[in-house]
């Protein structure tokens, strides 16, 4: 058991790091609003795949990294990611037997919840972002989900 969890942590950390890099990769201004929340998708994958290997811890610290890198109030992304990782952990047994479409829809709900927490904290700390562009990322993220699961599970099986 011990050994197994240790083996799992490396791809976890690696994929989170790559997702973090993708989150700040410069894109043309026109495409910026379409950037999916890669790190959230990766964290959700790991909280569904192996919750006991520390998916929620990963969520908290990934969120903290996002806060520092985006320069927003400390704890904002950490809170949103932790809550959504907890929800995904709760749903994980059901998620596994879902069809691709239902999985995508569930992920869409989780990503929207994530954006909602960010939106709420933004508003509560006094610098609201009111553009509709923010609600586009969950759609793109949900569409990317099957692709991401395919890639990560292959990486995982190595």
């Amino acid at each position, binding site marked *: 058991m011990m050994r197994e969890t240790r083996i799992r942590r490396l791809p976890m950390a690696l994929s989170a790091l790559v997702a973090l890099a993708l989150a700040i990769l410069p894109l043309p201004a026109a495409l910026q609003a379409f950037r999916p929340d890669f790190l959230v998708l990766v964290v959700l994958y790991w909280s569904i795949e192996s919750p006991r290997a520390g998916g929620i811890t990963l969520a908290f610290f990934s969120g903290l*990294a996002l806060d520092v890198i985006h320069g927003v109030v400390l704890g904002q992304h950490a809170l949103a990611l932790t809550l959504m990782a907890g929800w995904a952990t709760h749903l994980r*047994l059901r998620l596994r037997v879902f069809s691709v479409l239902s999985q995508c829809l569930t992920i869409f709900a989780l990503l929207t919840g994530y954006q909602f927490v960010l939106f709420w904290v933004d508003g509560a700390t006094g610098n609201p*972002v009111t553009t509709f*562009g923010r609600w586009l990322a969950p759609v793109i993220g949900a569409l990317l989900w099957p692709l991401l*699961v*395919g890639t990560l599970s292959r990486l995982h099986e190595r």
Partner: protein
Amino acid sequence: MVAFRNTDTSGRTTGLLLRCVLYSLLALGLIIVDKRYDHLGKIRRLLSIVAYPVQIAVASPFQGWDWFRESVTTRDALRVDKATLESELRLAQFRLQRYEAIEAESQRLRALRGSTAAITDRFVIGNLMDIDLDAFRERVLVDKGAHDGVFVGQAVLDSGGVFGQVARVGQLTAEVILISDATHAIPVQINRNGLRTIAVGTGDMSRLKLPYLPTSADVVAGDLLVTSGLGGGFPAGYPVGTVAEVKRDPAQSLADVEVKPAAALDRSRELMFVWLKPQPTASDVPANTPAPAAPPAPSTHAAPKAIKSPTAGAPSR
């Protein structure tokens, strides 16, 4: 394709949910502490050092590509570049010829009036890092930080005019909020008639607004806006933008004025951090002013003092 390999199918998640609640509370606590108090500055600065390698790793391929493109330019292209730069420099020098005399004169006149304006003391050039911070906020990351003496609220210029101000400082990086950010406002005045107002960002890099001018205000398209220096954050007299459009609706009490920023907010790569010379305090101004003010002759000894500011900035370029 969408298959999970894991066979961990036990439904016991109480421990995990407890952990989730704990982390959420911790995150909430962080938000409150970060928002209400200023204790987390140091922690954030330390964390920004940890984030630095990731930022460098993302930015370096783009910088490498720029470097590569630069190093394979042809001789002809370089020659054309050199010619245009030389003509630009000549033009700038022509414009500068009278600058020092005028600066000295303005100093004397200000001394006569007993008023002092903040003078720029020195510049440090920072380079933009190729990193997207947030798609919905107008912010950029620059490779100068607390290590180089950058501080929060510091004015940042580019070659065209005012670019923004420092919003957050890390050890090696600083976050600059653009004047076009929807939460940013900058005190300006119209260069033609000295009318003071505030230019507010719109969230669109090509546009600012002047929302507090009455319909009767003397403002026309083409007016140059410069910083007024009020508030002390920005040095006075730097271009902020030109008025692009003035809409006057007689039914409204305020005019709808759009401004095109002078700085190339979406293109500039090199930014200047500005340090202001500490202002003489109000108490020692009246004591000093009568002496140089009485005869107009001391222009010779007043001039070198005033010239110091532009020349001090030159070597650091």
